[in-house]
């Protein structure tokens, strides 16, 4: 049993002490009387004591019960079950899907509003006042209203629900609802109540993404398993005592509205100049993908707005890319972090109509090439060292956007690496241990390190030292291997983000490449291969440094299995050389700068905020009203809270992260009831509720009825107490002035009194004698 106004209930309980306190106070105020006939009085008290005590207890109990009943009546008790054998009261946990897809507008109101209205209707149809708790299903599920019967609180909680941009997590929300029910049962507040979980969702594809991950074998997350656990915890008979938990789901939406969204933004600096190239992937879905157009515009911080462009959809077309070039609004030198935004026109679902990206724009990249040259290097083409080929490839002409700085291996230290964006190790065999340490730190700080085998010798004994310092698991064979005939690159290269900008012409560029000598690489995964030889061995691999605990760090390590020297390969003299090195360095720098994009609903990792790793505070680019959303990065490098909104996030130190809505979280395809039931089957037996159905099944007295009954009881107790206290207080006895009692003592004797007139005139003296 609980109360609508617990404080008043406690006051009622406390009021029970009032009669006792009054009794004690009045007891102190009793007057003292000197008395002669003490033995008679003592005997009289002894004879009446049991009756008096009984009377006192009766009256005291009545008074206490009366106050208790009155207090409880005012406090509005809420009973778990009816006393008359009616249907049990329910504990209803409403799981409201306010995920990203719930903002879908089907007319003037959003789907979330429609779902909430349906929940309101369902709750209003119940004649009993259910205890209702509310769980929001958007990531991460939150209990926004603990179970209560306070209709005002329920309505207030419902009215405050807004669609989130985070994905729906119906499964976790459902489990949270079950946990709440379990907690309520364990603390006794919901004992005997019928528990019900209402899944209030349109059950579009986005809502069932996480539910589909539930396997039937995962019985720990099912209602049945939960029920058994709950029963075991309560120490009761599982079969009989604990009411079942029923799952009610709203009918899934069956419409398939059309909606376009920004799926992906690829923003990178132009190879030359300060411009930013933006490529946006626009997708649309819906039942009928008619021909049409969607207007798209792109902006960037400090950049001139690009002219709005339109995506012209053909019938049935679901995806399209559109390119923008953002030009700087003013001449700016140095490195800048630019937030790029792509917007499409508003449609049925506003969520997803924006895409964000953070891009580093540098006016000129600084590349260090660690190698040793001699005066004879250029005298013979066959003897041109790889460091020279690389320098020429990276900076073939003035204005290429890259500036190469030659570093002798003996002078390679932290100071020499200062200000560099990337380092190419052309002679790793000449690096001292301290140089290796400096390069390792450079990589971990977000730099790109390209490792080339030492072209001067067959033996490659540097591998273990260098790669271990670079914190990558790459391994290199101790000796180079000659190939006759030379190895050719595979015609079909694996997709790699490093070479995505030259991917269309890559097959043509790799065709003439022959490799006569390689050194075997190992310790990489398939996804880390950038270029692969025809025999399957890698030519170029890329790895991110990792901590000892396996956590990916910033930075990028790119390993070559061959040295770009002509005695090793013809790569230096082929067209692939320049774009290969420039792209892997440029793209590598973008990637090594950190994962500067995060999906809404994820935690922001510290890799993107290395300089703010400890308690860094990231502020959003835009403020909503007067509030600014902040995210604190914990000492573990991960934000304590989830990223809940799409946008550009910037730290005080200049770090920038873009957050975007996951496309899967706004997938609007409808699901048939059967498929929804099948998807929810692991949770338990789901029953759908139609809007026409009436859930009024309970005939349990309402709280008002209980209060009225208690009030009547209190009044009845008051009446009984009044009569009994009047009776027991003996106030109704003859008044003290009456002489009846006195006369009765002597009157009996007066009968025997002599009949002389003088004697008979005296009224209160009697006489008797043995002389008659």
């Amino acid at each position, binding site marked *: 049993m609980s109360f609508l106004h617990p404080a008043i209930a406690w006051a009622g309980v406390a009021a029970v002490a009032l009669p006792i306190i009054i009794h004690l106070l*009045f*007891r102190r105020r*009793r*007057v*003292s*009387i*000197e*008395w*002669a*006939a*003490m*033995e*008679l*009085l*003592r*005997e*009289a*008290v002894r*004879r*009446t004591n049991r009756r*008096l005590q009984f*009377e006192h207890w009766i009256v005291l109990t009545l008074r206490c019960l009366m106050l208790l009943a009155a207090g409880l009546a005012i406090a509005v008790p809420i009973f778990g079950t009816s006393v008359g054998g009616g249907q049990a009261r329910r504990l209803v946990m409403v799981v409201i899907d306010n995920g990203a897809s719930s903002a879908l507008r089907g007319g003037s109101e959003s789907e979330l509003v429609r779902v909430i209205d349906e929940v309101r209707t369902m709750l209003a149809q119940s004649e009993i006042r259910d205890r209702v708790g509310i769980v929001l299903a958007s990531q991460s599920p939150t209990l926004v209203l603990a179970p209560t019967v306070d209709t005002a609180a329920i309505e207030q909680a419902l009215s405050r629900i807004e669609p989130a941009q985070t994905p729906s997590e119906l499964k976790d929300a459902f489990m949270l609802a079950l946990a709440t029910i379990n907690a309520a049962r364990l603390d006794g507040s919901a004992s005997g109540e019928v528990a019900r979980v209402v899944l209030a969702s349109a059950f579009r594809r986005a809502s069932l993404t996480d539910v589909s991950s539930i396997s039937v074998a995962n019985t720990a997350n099912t209602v049945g398993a939960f029920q058994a656990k709950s029963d075991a915890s309560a120490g009761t008979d599982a079969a009989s005592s604990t009411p079942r938990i029923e799952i009610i789901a709203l009918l899934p939406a069956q419409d398939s509205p059309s909606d376009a969204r920004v799926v992906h933004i690829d923003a990178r600096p132009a190879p030359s100049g300060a411009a930013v190239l933006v490529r946006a992937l626009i997708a649309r879905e819906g039942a009928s993908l008619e021909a049409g157009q969607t207007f798209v515009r792109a902006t960037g911080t400090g950049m001139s707005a690009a002219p709005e462009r339109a995506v012209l959809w053909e019938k049935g077309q679901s995806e399209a890319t559109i390119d923008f070039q953002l030009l700087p609004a003013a001449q700016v030198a140095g490195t800048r972090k630019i937030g790029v935004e792509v917007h499409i026109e508003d449609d049925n679902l506003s969520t997803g109509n924006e895409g964000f990206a953070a891009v580093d724009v540098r006016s000129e990249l600084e590349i260090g090439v660690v190698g040793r040259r001699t005066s004879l290097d250029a005298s013979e083409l066959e003897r041109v060292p790889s460091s020279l080929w690389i320098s020429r490839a990276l900076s073939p002409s003035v204005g290429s956007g890259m500036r190469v700085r030659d570093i002798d291996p003996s002078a390679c230290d932290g100071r020499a690496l200062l200000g560099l964006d990337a380092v190419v190790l052309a002679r790793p065999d000449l690096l001292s241990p301290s140089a290796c340490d400096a390069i390792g730190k450079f990589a971990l700080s977000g730099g790109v390190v390209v490792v080339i085998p030492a072209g001067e010798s067959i033996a490659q004994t540097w591998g273990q030292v260098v790669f271990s310092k670079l914190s990558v698991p790459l391994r290199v064979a101790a000796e180079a291997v000659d190939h006759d005939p030379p190895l050719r690159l595979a015609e079909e290269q694996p997709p790699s983000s490093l070479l995505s900008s030259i991917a269309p012409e890559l097959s043509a560029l790799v065709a003439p490449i022959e490799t006569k000598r390689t050194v075997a690489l190992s310790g990489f995964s398939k996804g880390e291969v950038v270029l692969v030889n025809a025999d399957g061995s890698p030519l170029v691999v890329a790895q991110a440094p990792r901590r000892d605990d396996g956590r990916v760090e910033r930075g990028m390590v790119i390993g070559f299995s061959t040295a770009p020297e002509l005695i090793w390969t013809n790569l230096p003299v082929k067209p692939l050389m320049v774009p290969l090195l420039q792209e892997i360095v440029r793209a590598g720098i973008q990637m090594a700068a950190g994962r500067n994009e995060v999906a809404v609903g994820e935690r922001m990792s510290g890799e993107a905020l290395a300089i703010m790793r400890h308690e860094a505070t990231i502020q959003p680019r835009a403020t909503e009203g007067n509030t600014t959303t902040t995210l604190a990065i914990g000492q573990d490098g991960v934000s304590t809270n989830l990223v809940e909104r799409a946008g550009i996030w910037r730290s005080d130190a200049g770090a920038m992260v873009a957050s975007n809505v996951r496309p899967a979280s706004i997938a609007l395809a409808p699901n048939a009831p059967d498929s929804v039931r099948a998807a929810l089957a692991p949770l338990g037996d789901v029953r759908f509720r139609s809007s026409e159905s009436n859930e009024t099944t309970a005939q349990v007295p309402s709280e008002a009825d209980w209060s009225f009954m208690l009030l009547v009881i209190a009044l009845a107790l008051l009446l009984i107490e009044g009569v009994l206290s009047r009776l*027991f*207080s*003996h*106030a109704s*006895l003859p*008044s*003290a*002035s*009456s*002489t009846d*009692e*006195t006369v*009765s*003592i*002597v009157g*009996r*004797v007066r009968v025997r009194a*002599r009949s*002389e*007139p*003088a*004697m008979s*005139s*005296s*009224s*209160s*003296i*009697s*006489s*008797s*004698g*043995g*002389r008659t």
Partner: protein
Amino acid sequence: MRAEQYLAPETLGQLLPFELRARMIVEGVMSGMHRSPYQGLAVEFAEHRQYAPGDSIRQIDWKVFARTDKLYVKRYVQETNLDVLVMVDRSSSMRYGTLDVKKGWGGTDASRGTGKWTKFDHATATAAAVGYMCLHQGDRVGLALFDEEVRVQVKRSSQRDQWRAIVGALSTGPVNGRAQIGRSIDQMMARVTNRALFVIVSDFLMPIDELRPAIARLAHRGHDAMLVQTLDRAELRFDFDSPARFEGLEGGDAIETDPRAVRAAYLALLREHVDAVDRLARSFGADALVCDTHESVGPVLAEVLDRRMSFTGRRGG
């Protein structure tokens, strides 16, 4: 003014000094009686009885013998040598009273302290009045004040100044202690050789078993007794109307109770006790009176006179 009005405690209290008060009581009683107590008291000859061997020949009525030639003996009534012993209880319980003593009233030390007309006040008034009346009829009157034992005693006498001695003894002395009526009666009986009328004025709030042996010994010795049970009106009615703490005048644990709740039981017990005293008295040929301190003592005197006549009659017979 009617005699009864004189005898009301309010009136008695204003009739100072003590002597005047007692006289008013007695005269009021006598004037209110239809049959004067003096009648018959002057008749010396009571009856004739046939002579029996052993009778004194001096008591033979020779005139009757001369007329009837039969021997008859004269029987005479003893006129003046009735011994009346008034015993007044002055234990602590007699200190109780609820009638307010008004200005100008006399009373004893007991009432002076409390401002109430106590049972002891009423008992002394009764004793003084009885003494006065008996002395006026030529009886020998003695007095004893007792609690645990006889504390004050006035020897029997029929002298004119005897009454002053009695009043002097009554008006002083503490009212204290616990009544030991059996012991006190024994002490008095040890000093009385002839038959006497014992008028015992007390509240008799002691166990009947304690009273019974004393009354029995009186009866066995041939004495007559009259028990005047003097109780306050509050004791008779127990008309308190709010919870109170009752503290015993003779000590003991206090009792907290609601008088209204125990009133019926108390009155029933009081009635039983009064009945028991009454039955006890009757069983030994004695009288028992219940006297309300708020009422007149006149009827007590009338009863004493009645008892006296009965006593002298038996003794003559």
